[in-house]
Structures are given as C-alpha cells and as structure tokens.
C-alpha cells in the first residue's frame, strides 16, 4: 500500500517536471535549452515544438497513471 502511494507521488512529480520541460521547449530556442536537454544546439534559434509535445504527452500519461493508481475500488472501500 505504501509502495503504491509512493508510485502515485512519483508519477505526479514526474508529470509536473515533464510539463515544465514541455513549456521550456516551447518557450526557449534550441541555443537556450539546458545542455542536457535533447535538441540543445548552440547558436540555433529553432524551437523544438515537437519535443515539447512529446514531453507534454508523457506528462499527461503520468497524471493518468496517478489518477487510476490512487482511485478505484480499493480507495472507495477505504473511504467507507
């Protein structure tokens, strides 16, 4: 049970981080991205919109996982 709750928190944190990453990809050109980001390229003004969409999709997937993992019959049974 404790492990399940840890996974929910992990998914939530990961989801938030990925959505922040998506925003960074959309807001910053390739030259301004942190060097450990895929797509970082010195001197490039290209915006990696697709990388941002990919990060957003993964972030949403993490939220959906947390939503299912923290709900369901067990949760309702505990509430009763």
């Amino acid at each position: 049970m404790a492990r399940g709750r840890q996974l929910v928190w992990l998914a939530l944190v990961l989801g938030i981080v990925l959505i922040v990453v998506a925003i960074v990809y959309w807001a910053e050109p390739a030259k301004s991205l942190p060097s450990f980001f895929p797509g970082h390229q010195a001197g490039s003004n290209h915006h990696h919109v697709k990388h941002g969409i990919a990060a957003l999709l993964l972030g949403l997937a993490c939220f959906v996982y947390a939503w299912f993992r923290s709900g369901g019959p067990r949760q309702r049974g505990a509430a009763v």
Partner: protein
Amino acid sequence: MPISYGQAIVLGLLQGVSELFPVSSLGHSVILPRLLGWHIHQNDSFFITFLVATHLATAIVLFGFFWRDWVRILRGIGRSLREREIAPGDTDAKLGWLLVVGTIPAGILGLLLQDKLRSVFASAQYAALFLIVNGLVLFGAEALRRRAPEPERGDPDERIGRRVSWRDASGVGAVQALALIPGFSRSGVTMGGGLLVGLSNEDAARFAFLLATPIIGAAAALKLPELFGPQGNGVRGPALVGAICAAVTAYLSVRFLMRFFETNRLTPFAIYCVAAGVAASVYFLL
C-alpha cells in the same frame, strides 16, 4: 506547378491503398516517382505538404469507418476516468486505454525521430531494400504467430482486450515508428505485432487500423499549417485532388481488408513486398 493534377491523382490513389495495405505507403511514394522519372523527392517541402493532405484524408476515412467504435471507445475511456478504474468486462474502456498506451510510444518516437529517419533513408534505393525487409517481417510474423489462422466468433474488441496486455500494446505501438523509414509499413508491422501477441489476422487488422487513426491524424494535423501557409502555394489544388483520391481508395481498402483478414493471412502482401522490393532494387542498379 511542382505536382501536376495527373501526378496528384496517381499518388493520391496510391496513398489511400498503400497506407492501409501492409505494403508501405511512404516506400511506394518514394519508389514510384523515381520509377516514372518524376522530379518528386520525399524531402521536397511541396511533396511533404501534399502528403499532409492525403494522410489527413486517410485518417478521416479511417475515423469515419470506425466511427461507432470510436464513440464507444471514447465513452469507455470517459467512464473509466470517472470511476478511476477499468471495470472488469468494460471492453470499450480496456480497448481505449490499450490504444492510448500503444499510441504514446509511437507518437513520441515519431515526434523525435521523424525528420532524422526521413533524411537518412531518403533514397528510393533504401526504400526498395526496406520494402524487402518489410516483406520478410510479414513472413516472420506469420511464421511465429501464436494463434492458428482460423476464423473466430464473438466480439473482436473483447478478444483484443483479453489477449493484449499493456506491455504488448506499448510494444505493438512502438513498432509503428518503423513506418517512419520508407519501405516499412505501419499497418504491416502492427498487424505482425498483433499476430505475435496472440491475435488472429482479423483482430490484428482491426487493432492496427484503430491504432493508426490517431497517429496518422495527429501527424497530419501537426503539419496542417504548412498546407495553408506559404509552403502550400501552388500545391493546394493538387493536394485537394490527391486527398479526395486517397479518401476513396482508403475507404475501399479498409472495407476490403476487414473482410479479407477474416479468412486470409499476411502472406500475399509479404510476397508482394519482397517481389516489388527486389524488382525495384534491380531496376535502380541497372
């Protein structure tokens, strides 16, 4: 005009058929212009814009063909989100989430690798070689299939939900990224993947077409601004004609294939891919 109306009709008709038949639409779009001596290259911006329109038409036809299924699937997803669980026996919700799980890896790989793969494997020679490999993959999938090729009764969605695990769905979805390489077929590799995880040909085809719809539609929608922007100048007319042709042949193809796979296998397409790939390779060598 970079693409004539005649070329648009031929390429549109070809796109509608080859996108859904497991024979690689991109591969054919690369090989055929070269065989006919047309000055159309798959990385030409006008050709990419043209392909956006034909892909969008194919996605709309697929969505329309499975319209009732999509309504059920989307309701199932909504129901499971409200209840925060996939109820046992809720086939629509299970199938819906299998499609989501299959689409995510394909979408991410496609977004990240599309441009790189297309630029590396842009030549018609590569496409012909990969068409041969695609045929071998189809042969392999039939040889390694888990379920004997026989007609099945009952609800296909229930069978898919029962036989495809989450891991299977993500694996089958991820192999769709192979279709970014000209010569590999999206529907071919997903149907092959379906056979390997225990689906029949009929169910594998259904799962492949449902899985393809959001990916093809989203990929086309992402590039739609190019069609209506300056890049689309001079291409919009042929693109519209090509899209209509693609829609017609896509509809006929999906209708035919759903019946075909009730009793038939991938083998004829495997033979075609190997034969066409070998013939094209020899032609390019001479």
